[in-house]
């Protein structure tokens, strides 16, 4: 980062020189030419954090430009039209990975371009956010780029079996994601199973057209599989035996496979010794009876077990899972949990590293305490919405699990404010802390600010905290990247400025509905140059000038929510359009932006999501122009009243371009009292 700044300065100097001197002198003054290529490459190796650094570097001189072009291995193009792509691909001859997630439209000719340019160099391509390519494009890719080992085709909802058959031509493929490829059937998966024999990872999540036959064939043909995601597939016990016979299988996800039931688990005699991770969450037809035979199926190497939303966690179940000696992570989210069950988990001889009990009903102080006393090595604990626990639990947790790095305890409403002081005192290694909707006050926050490694802190709907507490955080937690102050109504500019000056790495901040926050906060936040997400919804004091400060300084801004910032107008849009070239998502509802501002905003080429509801200054013509100009859009929220006012061919065109328009018809709601977001105690007690 700093290096690049330096180089940029050099570049500027050089520019000055060139304007004043002749060309012969210029060639003499270009001292960069004396650097060996190895040295330049070494420098380049360090330029990873900020994507702009490389750009600056390459602009220093022709020599740097060419070295950078040769050095670059990965590319994330903004546009995928073949003209643009062609020039970019000729510039970078050594690309091994192309990430097309910013290109919603990747047609077959673009893929042909890539396959012709990259040939055998290309090893990885990400098409998970792209549409409009078909099997022909993929076939081109598979045949030309024979060293392709990784393809992400998730969300290719229109991809047919022919596309899968094309993928099957990539003989060296090792990792393949096909999540949500709904049109692919057993046939397509069968082709892949036969063609891509080296597959190590495959995700078929949500490929609802794939059943036992395809999965079974996959397991029979691709013996190398390590990771297999079969979530929500209509598979039954038919294909399970062959899956468990995969001798390298480490990670098996069977989330939401309703076809798998107790009997299929009981019948299975074969065990998969290599299995390290098993996810059976939301398998509704599995009960504790089937789970009791789990130890037979997953061998002694199982490290992670996810049983979320499956069966009640009783002492019987917990006892049946005793025989897993390597277990480190257990996720039981959404299960009914008994105290006896938690105690039995506490009696396991293994020492868990990670435990998730979020949304578990039945977690009591008694059960949780007896568990955490035994599992002193816990690093991550999730007790979100365990509404019955109190100070007692937190006292036990903090006392025994001092090595915690992550604690999530949203909406633990009965936990008293003193408990948070304990967290700060005893769990110094916390990196992630979610205290959303809790009773924490400034005293607790002051204590928590001692966790100097904290990188994510969520304080949404914590109505008792003020600037004072937040200032402590800003003062001590210099590594903070994520701060959520949603509806913390007492926070003002001074709190935010403390954060902005103390947390230079801040990437995400949410100050939604902190109604007292003004432009001053934004100006101070503009110091955080890595800010990529700013949620300032419902801050009526913010104006365009505050926004301009953010836009000019925070070049990496990706997501911006300024809904109900009534004062923001076209000026703010102009500064965004000229400065925030990475903006992908924006919500402008209820602002004072007019046609002109919107059309200017359309300059941002990678803008994908646009929400423009209740904007009085917008006309159908302006909207039409903006939508037409902004080619990257994939999702637009518009008011239903515009549906009839916009020309039908335009809507058709947008649809064809890959842009989905969501029509909304909601009336303006009056602002609710902040307290109504708090769960009443009566609701919790039962």
């Amino acid at each position, binding site marked *: 980062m700093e290096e690049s700044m330096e180089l940029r300065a050099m570049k500027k100097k050089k520019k000055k020189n060139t304007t004043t001197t002749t060309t012969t002198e210029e060639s003499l003054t270009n001292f960069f030419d004396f650097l060996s290529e190895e040295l330049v490459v070494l420098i380049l190796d360090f330029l990873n954090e900020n994507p702009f650094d490389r750009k600056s570097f390459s602009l220093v001189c022709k020599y740097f430009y060419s070295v950078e072009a040769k050095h670059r291995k990965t590319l994330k193009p903004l546009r995928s039209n073949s003209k643009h792509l062609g020039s970019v691909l000729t510039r970078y001859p050594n690309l091994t990975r192309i990430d097309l997630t910013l290109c919603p439209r990747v047609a077959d000719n673009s893929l042909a371009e890539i*396959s012709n340019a990259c040939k055998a160099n290309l090893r990885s391509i990400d098409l998970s956010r792209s549409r409009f390519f*078909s099997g*022909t494009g993929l076939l081109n890719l598979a045949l030309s780029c024979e060293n392709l080992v990784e393809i992400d085709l998730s969300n290719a909802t229109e991809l047919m079996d022919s596309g899968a058959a094309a993928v099957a031509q990539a003989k060296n493929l090792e990792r393949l994601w096909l999540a949500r490829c709904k049109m692919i059937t057993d046939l397509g998966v069968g082709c892949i199973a036969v063609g891509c024999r080296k597959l190590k990872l495959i995700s078929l999540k949500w490929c609802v057209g794939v059943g036992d036959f395809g999965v079974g064939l996959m397991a029979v043909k691709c013996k190398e599989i390590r990771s297999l995601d079969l979530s929500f597939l209509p598979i039954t016990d038919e294909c399970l035996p062959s899956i468990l016979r995969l001798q390298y299988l480490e990670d098996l996800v069977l989330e939401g496979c309703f076809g798998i039931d107790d009997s299929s688990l009981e019948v299975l005699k074969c065990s998969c010794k290599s299995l390290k991770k098993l996810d059976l969450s939301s398998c509704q037809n599995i009960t504790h009876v089937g789970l009791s035979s789990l130890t037979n199926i997953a061998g002694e190497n199982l490290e992670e077990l996810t049983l979320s939303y499956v069966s009640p966690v009783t002492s019987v179940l917990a006892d049946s899972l005793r025989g897993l000696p390597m277990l480190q992570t257990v996720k039981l989210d959404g299960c009914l949990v008994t105290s006896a069950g938690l105690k039995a988990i506490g009696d396991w001889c293994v020492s868990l590293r990670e435990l998730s009990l979020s949304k578990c009903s039945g977690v009591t102080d008694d059960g949780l305490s007896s568990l955490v006393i035994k599992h002193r090595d816990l690093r991550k604990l999730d007790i979100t919405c365990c509404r019955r626990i109190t100070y007692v639990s937190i006292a036990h947790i903090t006392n025994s699990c001092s090595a915690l790095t992550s604690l999530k305890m949203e909406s633990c409403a009965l936990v008293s404010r003193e408990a948070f002081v304990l967290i700060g005192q005893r769990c110094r290694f916390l990196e992630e802390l979610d205290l959303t909707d809790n009773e924490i006050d400034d005293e607790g926050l002051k204590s928590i600010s001692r966790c100097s490694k904290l990188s994510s802190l969520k304080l949404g709907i914590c109505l008792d905290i003020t600037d004072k507490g937040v200032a402590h955080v800003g003062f001590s937690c210099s590594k903070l990247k994520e701060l959520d102050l949603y509806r913390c109504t007492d926070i003002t500019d001074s709190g935010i400025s403390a954060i902005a000056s103390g947390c230079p790495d801040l990437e995400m901040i949410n100050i939604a509905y902190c109604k007292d926050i003004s432009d001053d906060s934004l100006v101070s936040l503009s110091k955080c140059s890595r800010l990529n997400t700013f949620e300032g919804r419902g801050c009526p004091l913010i104006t365009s000038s505050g926004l301009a400060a953010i836009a000019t300084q925070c070049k990496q801004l990706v997501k911006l929510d300024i809904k109900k910032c009534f004062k923001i107008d076209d000026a703010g849009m102009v500064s965004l359009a000229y400065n925030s070239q990475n903006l992908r998502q924006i919500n402008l509802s209820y602002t004072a932006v007019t046609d002109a501002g919107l059309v200017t905003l359309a300059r941002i080429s990678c803008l994908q999501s646009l929400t423009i509801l209740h904007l009085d200054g917008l006309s159908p013509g302006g909207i039409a122009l903006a939508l037409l100009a902004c080619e990257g859009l994939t999702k637009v929220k518009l008011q239903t009243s515009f549906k009839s006012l916009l020309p039908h061919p335009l809507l058709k065109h947008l649809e064809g371009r890959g842009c989905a328009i969501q029509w909304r018809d909601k009336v303006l709601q009056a602002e609710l009292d902040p307290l109504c977001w708090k769960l009443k105690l009566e609701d919790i007690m039962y």
Partner: protein
Amino acid sequence: MELREGLCAGQWPNSSSKELSSDPPSSYSEFNSHQGQQKWPNSSILDYGVRIEPSFRGFDQSSEVHAVIPLDLSNKSKVLGPEDVHMQDTEEANNIPDWDPSAMLNNLSFLEQKIHQLQNLVQLIAGGGGQVLGRPTEVAQQHQLITADLTSIIAQLISTAGSLLPSAQNTFTTDLPSMGQLAQPGEVLGVSAGVQPQNNGRSKISEESNQIDKNANHGVEHNNHMDEHDFKDEEDADDGENLPPGTYEILQLEKEEILAPHTHFCAICGKGFKRDANLRMHMRGHGDEYKTPAALAKPHKELGSEPVVIKRYSCPYAGCKRNKDHKKFQPLKTILCVKNHYKRTHCDKSYTCSRCNIKKFSVIADLKTHEKHCGKDKWLCSCGTTFSRKDKLFGHIALFQGHTPAIPIDETRGNGGGPADHSTGIEVINKGSVNSVTFNFGPSTPGETVVHNIMDEKGNLDDPTACFSPLNFDTCNFGGFHEFPRPPFEDSESSFSFLLSGSCSYPPKIGAESSSNNNL
């Protein structure tokens, strides 16, 4: 129950064989000529005789009394009185293969009795005529009974007379002592057919053919597995039955017999008839109980309720696993099985499906079943084999290296007509290359040279060690299928050409152009 069968078979030993001999005269004489040439076949037949005879004799001596009772019970009709049984007993006692005057005498006296009974019957009808006249159906029935009885008497008379004839019959009966008991011409003829290759001096052939047959059978079953149009034959159904050899009687029909368009089969000897009436006539030769009006009117009725000797059938094709000389002989359960097996395995497939013009069948029922599903076979393998069921296809693919599911053509086409901003040029080109890939699946298609061309043209694009090379087909035992009596890939080969014609809406050459065009 064996005993009873034995009795049935033995009742009219000479007459029955003679009666049948008059039915297919040509084949009979052929058989005789073989007898003249060689002694060898006799021994094999003797073998059979020995196998069956002892059991028969054993029963004969020890349980003759018991034997009478079931017979008595079985003969519910008034035609056969106690005398008849007695007569049969005596006949059994004189069960000599040679012509026997006493047997002849018995026959004649039986005929006499029969005529007498018929006489009585006609008298009865004539007497009660006034009463019966009102019911024409009954009259017709009685008329039928009389005619049937008469014909049976005539037939009996002829056969009895035939036994008196000298020469051929005489040598036959003297040479083959067991013939009388067996009384199954099909069997005899079948054996002669099976022996034929050995007559030609190729003594090792049976060994060899057995060997080939193993392959062939493998191939066939294999094909069955892959292609359910080859039906899990009824003949396969008895595979699991595992009757120990000797506990059943083996019958072997002659080739001509099997292929004759018969629909009515003798439950005892397996002979087929075009008309049921002819069968009934034939049945009479097997014993008196078939001569009753009831038996003649409704054939097999009594048989069903009776315990019978288990009969199994042998395929006349030498070397076939279903042939009784095969080491691992697996008998066929019914005559229908024999017919279907023989036609499917050893005959040309002369019935072609009118819908696809590809699938050929030798059994017309198979064709009809196929035609029901023809065109609905949506599960297609890259090797060209079609399946009507998905699990069959996936079982097939799991089994073989290099086979992959073929994506239906309409889908490929449908996908092609995608979004508007596609350049059609690329679309076509890629189509071509898709086709060329499909092309390479073929093991040894008629257009093998074309395959090679494409392979060359694809050059570095296609890994030569890829699963689609014809080599892999050899590893899957697909090579050398010419040796098979019935090429297991005959169908698939032809449907492969179908695949080509269907999916290649573009000439295969385009595949070559694609690589150059892609560089544009």
